[in-house]
């Protein structure tokens, strides 16, 4: 974000009504999360009473422990970290390469290929799950993490995002100068493109990590709850009655959400900036 002064659109100071409305909205946004923690800190019997609890109880760590062991949340968290980390890293690197080529290099079919990239954003995931499932069944990859990682390792949005960023952020003269000095294409990418793209790479990495962490539809087909779940698959298993204890289910939900919430507390500003940036340009 740039400075506040003279910012177009910031035409008025917020009045009392603006604050009141925003506080209500913020409360609505945060309440289900806070209540997840409250419910996770209570016993199942207490949750089956009216009025529902509004403050924390003493069972939090015990419920977290049960969720961790019985619901496989430990494995699930580790798996999800591996999946989201690989997907984010792959997407960032491949998108930067492709985005640089589309932004700054000349080659035949460039516009047609770019249109194809944008077109792929419109294809819903449902259209590919049946063959993908056959494929991983054929390869005996069911319950293995690569079956979740590989299909999402590149992203059309990422390519487009990096292209838009590099069009502006990467001066053509810099590349030409390196070329005159005899640098090959890979050297140019390593020494000029990557440093110039770093802010956008960080944003894309965070957005992709969040998306991959929360991905649901394909993982629940490719992985099983009892085998090698991601957090989302483990949570779905909890919801479908493997563990009937509501407070433990809430503890699982809390465990699955907490890492991203912590990331939001630390990197919130950058993530917000990234979404707003992507929105203006996309």
């Amino acid at each position, binding site marked *: *974000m740039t400075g506040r002064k*003279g910012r177009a*659109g*910031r*035409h*008025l*100071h917020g009045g009392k009504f*603006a604050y009141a409305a*925003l506080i209500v909205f*913020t409360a609505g*946004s945060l309440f*289900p999360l806070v209540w*997840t923690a409250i*419910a996770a800190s209570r016993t199942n019997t207490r949750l*089956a009473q*009216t*009025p*529902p609890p509004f403050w924390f109880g003493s069972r939090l760590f015990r419920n977290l422990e049960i969720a961790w062991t019985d619901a496989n949340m430990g494995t699930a968290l580790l798996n999800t970290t591996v999946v989201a980390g690989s997907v984010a890293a792959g997407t960032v690197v491949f998108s930067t*390469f492709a985005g*640089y*080529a*589309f932004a700054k*290099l*000349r*080659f035949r079919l*460039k516009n047609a*290929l770019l249109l*194809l990239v944008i077109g792929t954003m419109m294809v819903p995931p449902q*259209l*590919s799950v049946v*063959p*993908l*499932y*056959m494929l991983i*069944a*054929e390869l005996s990859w069911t319950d293995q993490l690569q079956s979740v990682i590989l299909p999402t390792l*590149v992203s059309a949005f990422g390519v487009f995002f990096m292209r838009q960023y590099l069009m502006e952020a990467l001066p053509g003269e810099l590349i*030409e100068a390196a070329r005159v000095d*005899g640098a090959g294409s890979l050297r140019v990418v390593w020494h000029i493109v990557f440093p110039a793209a770093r802010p956008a790479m960080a944003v894309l990495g965070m957005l992709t990590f*969040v998306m991959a962490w*929360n991905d649901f*539809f394909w993982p629940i087909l490719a992985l099983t709850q009892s085998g090698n779940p991601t*957090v*989302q698959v483990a949570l*779905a298993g909890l*919801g*479908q009655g493997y563990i009937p204890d509501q407070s433990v*289910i*809430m503890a699982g*939900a809390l465990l699955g*959400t907490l890492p991203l*919430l912590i*990331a*939001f*507390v630390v990197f*919130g500003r950058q993530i*917000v900036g990234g979404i*707003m*940036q992507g*929105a203006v340009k996309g």
Partner: protein
Amino acid sequence: MPEPAHGRPVAHVKDPGASGHAVDGTAPRGTDAAARRRRDRRSRRYRRDVRWSPYAFVAPFFLFFLAFGLFPLLYTGWASLHRVELTAPTDMEWVGLRNFSRLLEDEFFWNALRNTVTIGLMSTVPQLLMALGIAHLLNYRLRGSMFFRVAALTPYATSVAAATLVFVLLFGRDYGMVNWALGLVGIGDVDWQNGQWTSQLAVSTIVIWRWTGYNALIYLAAMQAVPKDLYESAALDGASPWQQFIHVTVPSLRHTILFTCVVSTIGATQLFGEPLLFSGGAGATGGADHQFQTLGLYLYEQGWVNLHLGRASAIAWAMFLILLVVGAVNWLIARRLGKSA
């Protein structure tokens, strides 16, 4: 592209091939020739590099896309013309368009389509209207505006699974907090899971909760690009803040609003996790009476519960066709809006 670097001193070039000439004994006579050859080779290599590296840079995307995007897309079309069972996915029996014609006679398909549309409308319309309002408020000069933005985005960080599990509890019939609160104002216990409208409303609430803040930030970004003098001249003409919002902000955001409509529509068409988990142990039926079974959930039921992959493929293509129609409608609206501008 810059021309190859002819001016570069050749002496600095470490070319492993070049030393061969010296060993041959051709070096004394052919120093110039060897240097020229080396230079040619370098510039040839350079030209090759410039010519082919763009393709190498975009290749990973397209290779992965071919393997995990395009091929499955086409194969789904192929599978939709066959009888394929999950138990033996390699035994495919050609049935032509029978999967599609069965779909048209299938009451559960139409039920799922209807539910997808109603839940889609119930979630998208309030979500985008609220997002517009929130964005407008966030656009004021505010203390702690970054806090409000981050807080608005936290539901986006919450997964479908975690969010749905919490809302299942909040919407519980007997001890849920929503019914408790409604009880305080004298409204009797609502059966959020088994009623037709109430269950769809509850599922929509989860969607609205997760995406309103995200859309608000997108609108906010667009609002900040609106020129300030538009507001100033509107204010000079005596427009109230509300009139400024309706006559300046909303028209300026036309394209962003359309963009969010398209994205939300695509999302609504694919709705899957919320209805799956909202039905708890009931699984893929979307409630005892299929009252909130969406198309995405119906695809899952046909393919992974009833094991009919061919029919699931047909549903997938039907969803794609519906999306294309929706996209075309959006495009027509966009064109009309563009003309009226």
